[in-house]
Every structure is written in structure tokens, then in C-alpha cells.
């Protein structure tokens, strides 16, 4: 199964990194993802995906490896996992391209993800329709958790914009709703320029929860948290990966492993694939 994501995120490449934090916290957003461990700095991570549908249990130890990278531009990685009990295997190859857009008033970074997935094994063949459906549900859950996470980050509103009232959660964009059919494009990133479409970031209370202060990236220029308006071909996975990429950039900037941002989307993919066996 192949998929593509083509998204414009309202941030600079390095700002995306600055927004988010903690590796463990990112993993916590992926339903079923546990025991995230950096195995080799800048190179590989391990995690365990656990899922349950009725009586069927799945436990997929996953290994994520960075094959190659070009700093702040591209990374090629793979995620491989196998669940011994059910004989389910997952194999993902992914190329992520970042391209910061110059020459506009607002920060924009183009995100391009191209991935191929293989899921094999008895549980996947016996229960493919349900496995696929559960994947979509997982993505939606990840998306919801991530959005909630982003909406708690502070100071991400551009100072000059006439953004909506800070506490008004009701301005959460409607495009947060998962599209029922694959292939339906979400609101385009052009919407990102419209302040009323942005997530209103709540007041700085979240900052107190952070373990480290954000780096010296200018807070005033950062876009509304959670305004991840994406154009994608495979909605569930697309949102999942793109946002995970953003999250991971943030984690990196805060002194965690620099290459977490490569691993996180893979974990997001692996989470959905882990679903496949469930």
C-alpha cells in the first residue's frame, strides 16, 4: 500500500521543531505505542505497539531505522516489526521532504511524505477489513490527541494577527473532523493564512508544564498551534504522519534526540500498521 502526503504547515522548519517537546509524550499520543527507546543515537529506535480487538491481541516490537538524511531537508527511513504470536509483519519505507517556503509573510513549510507499506501475516489476511478500519480509527485518535496537545502549547500566535480570542476553543477548525472517504482533501494550506481558521491557542498556562523552556525561536512569529491544515491523499495516515513530523521536530529542538522527528512519523505509521494485525 502506497501513500503520499503533501502538506503546507504554517511554520518554519525549525519552528516546527520548537513547538513540541518530549519523545515520550509524542509516543503517548500514538494509541498503543509503548516502551519507546532510543537504541542508537541519530540512528535507530525501538518501540512496542499493542492493540486489542475483541479477543485478538497484537504486540508488535518495532524497529525504526534512519537510512539517510539531509539536515532539515530530507530523511529516508524504514520501520520493521513482527508479532511473533500472530505472525504479523509490518514493513514501511518512507521518504520525508521538508521545504521551507520563503517570500511570504507567514512562515510556511512544505511537507512531502512518500511511503510504501507492506503488512503480511495470518491475522492481516483473516481480518483485513477490520484491521484496515481500526487503522483509520487509530489515526483519528492520534490526530485528536495531537490536536489537543498542540492546543495547549503557548505563545504560538503571531503577534500581528487579529487572531480570535485566546480561550475560545470553539474556533478549533472544522477540518479536524476525519474525512469519511479516503482521498478527500482536507482544507488546503491556503486556509492557514486566514486567521479565523487558526486554532486559538490557549493562554500560557501550558508553558508551566513544560520541563524546558522553548529555545530562542521568536514566539511572536510562530503560527497558531494545531493549525495543521493538510492536503493529503490518504487522510488518516497523512494527518498522523505530518503532525507527528511536526511534533518530532519540536522534540528535537529541545535537546532530545535530533532524529526523533524522523522516528515519530514512522511510529505513527507503525501504529497504524500495528493495527493491521489486530
Amino acid at each position: 500500500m502506497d501513500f503520499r502526503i503533501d502538506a503546507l504547515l504554517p511554520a518554519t522548519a525549525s519552528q516546527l521543531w520548537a513547538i513540541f517537546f518530549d519523545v515520550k509524550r509524542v509516543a503517548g499520543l500514538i494509541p498503543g505505542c509503548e516502551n519507546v527507546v532510543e537504541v542508537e543515537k541519530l540512528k535507530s529506535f525501538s518501540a512496542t505497539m499493542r492493540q486489542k480487538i475483541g479477543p485478538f491481541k497484537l504486540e508488535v516490537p518495532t524497529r525504526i531505522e534512519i537510512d539517510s538524511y539531509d539536515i532539515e531537508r530530507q530523511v529516508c527511513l524504514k520501520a520493521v516489526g513482527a508479532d511473533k504470536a500472530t505472525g504479523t509483519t509490518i514493513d514501511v519505507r518512507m521518504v520525508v521532504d521538508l521545504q521551507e517556503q520563503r517570500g511570504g509573510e507567514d512562515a510556511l513549510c512544505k511537507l512531502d511524505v512518500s511511503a510504501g507499506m507492506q503488512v503480511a501475516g495470518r491475522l492481516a489476511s483473516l481480518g483485513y477489513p477490520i484491521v484496515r478500519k481500526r487503522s483509520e480509527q487509530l489515526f483519528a485518535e492520534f490526530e485528536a490527541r495531537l490536536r489537543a496537545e498542540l492546543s495547549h502549547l503557548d505563545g504560538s500566535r503571531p503577534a500581528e494577527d487579529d487572531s480570535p480570542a485566546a480561550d475560545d476553543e470553539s474556533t478549533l477548525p472544522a477540518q479536524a473532523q476525519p474525512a469519511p472517504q479516503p482521498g478527500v482533501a482536507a482544507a488546503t494550506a491556503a486556509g492557514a493564512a486566514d486567521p479565523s481558521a487558526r486554532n486559538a491557542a490557549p493562554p500560557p498556562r501550558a508553558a508551566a508544564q513544560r520541563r524546558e523552556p522553548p529555545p530562542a525561536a521568536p514566539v511572536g512569529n510562530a503560527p497558531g498551534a494545531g493549525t495543521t491544515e493538510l492536503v493529503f491523499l490518504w487522510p488518516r495516515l497523512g494527518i498522523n504522519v505530518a503532525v507527528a513530523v511536526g511534533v518530532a521536530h519540536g522534540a528535537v529542538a529541545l535537546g532530545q534526540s535530533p532524529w526523533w522527528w524522523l522516528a515519530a512519523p514512522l511510529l505513527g505509521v507503525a501504529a497504524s500498521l500495528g493495527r493491521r494485525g489486530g
Partner: protein
Amino acid sequence: MRARKFFLHRPTDLDEAIRLKAEHGDAATFHAGGTELLVALKAHVLHYEHVIDLKQIEALKGVRLRDDGTISIGSLSTHDRIANDPIIRESLPGYAALSEHVANIRVRIAGTLGGVLCFAEPHADAPTLLCALDAWVVLLGPDGEREIPSRDFHLGEFTTARADDEILASIEIAPQSAGTRSAYRSFGHTERPAVGVAAVWSTDNAQRLSLWAGAISACPTRLSRAEEAAAELDGGLPAEAAWGRLRDAVRADAQAIDAHDDLHGGADYKRHLVSVLAERAIKACLP
């Protein structure tokens, strides 16, 4: 592959079966026809060290008519038994016909109604009609007995309201009024239905139509717009005219169903099938 080893228990009464399950907990499972369990055990996608065979328990067998006319189907009743049972054929011919067309003869001989309901694979026939008939299930567990309507029993894929330590004892269907007809139509290119629609039409009931679609989503789904439209209809309309008044409501219901592309068909195709099968099922109920 070969199934991994287990203890096979053969309790002869319900208390013993419930006790065994309580004793072994998650390591134990109930076994009836084995049409789902044994496939999963052989494929090693499930594993239990204790298999509790219920087939010796007489209380779970048989189809009988209670004093108030309620049809009580023992959970160990096979599809073949139900299809050929005189009580079912007399009172619920639509359900007898459904049972006659489940999968293939070997599955009908071995597979039980209790097993279909408890395993809760969405692509099944019986749950849809049982919901339309307002059937309910009787569950027995360490804490006693309880009853749950079919529509509340099915919670999702492989998920029901039955607690792990409970046994589904019987399926109960209220006596049908003289003016009630029921029918089920399904379609699938494998042995399991892609979509099934069950219609229960009463000429002597103000509510008139109970219409449910199954297999297309995680659990059977009521087609409520169609039911509301049917309540507005004059009595005695011939089949074609009745359908003409219900068609748009059925289509609206079908469009609202959360369907997914899968090996049974595309989501749009399955929603389309809902309308096609609803027409056939409704017309089969009408003169």
C-alpha cells in the same frame, strides 16, 4: 498449522461451565461449533490453554415455545437445526430461510447461533434479523442471569455486551402478531454477506416497519428514516406503492451508514446494496 495444546473440558451443566471459566479466566474460552474458534486456534491468532466445550449441556439446546408464546432458541442451536425447526418455520419463516442460507452446509451443521452472536464478526446474517425482530439474549454468569436486547448486545467488531465469564444461554423472540411478516435479503461474493437487510413489517402495528442493515458496519444498524416514513403510510398499500414511498428514506439511511472499502466491496457499492436489498426485503413482507 496445528493448534497449540490445550485442556478440553466437557462440563455437563451450566454451573460447572461457569465455574470452569471463572477458575481459568482469560486462559479459557467457550467452545460450541468451533467454526470460528478452531480456525483462529489453528492459525495461532488466538490461544487458550483451556477450552470449555458446551455441547454436553442440555439446557442450552433446543427450540421451544414458552407459555406466553415467546420463542426461545437455545444458544447451541445450529443454523441447520433452526432452518428445519417446525416452530421457527411456522412462526418465523424469514428466519428459517436466513438460517438455511448461512455460509455452506458444513457451517450450518456445526455452527451455532450462540457462537455467531458471541464471536461478533460483523459479516454475519442472524444478528441483523434478530435486531429487526427485537429479539433479546439471555446471559448467565457467576452473578446470575440477565437479559439484553439484541440491539444493545452488539457493540462492535468482535465485541458484545457479554462479559467474559458469561454464557449466552438463549435467544428470545416475542410472539409475532398475526399481521407481521419478516424477511432478510443479503448479498456477498464470499461465504459471508457483504450487506444484509432485515425487514419486519406489521400491518397490525402502528409502528409498522422495523428495518435494519447488517454486515456493512461494525454492528447492525437501524434504518430509522425508513421506519419513520413507514409509520406515515396508509395501511394496505401494495408492495410497489409502499416501496415508492419509502425509497428515498431508505437511500438517505444508506448514505448515512459509515461503511468502509474492504474485500467485501467498496463503501459506495455496499451502501447501494442496502437500498437494493431493502427493497427486496420490504417487498417480500408485503402482499
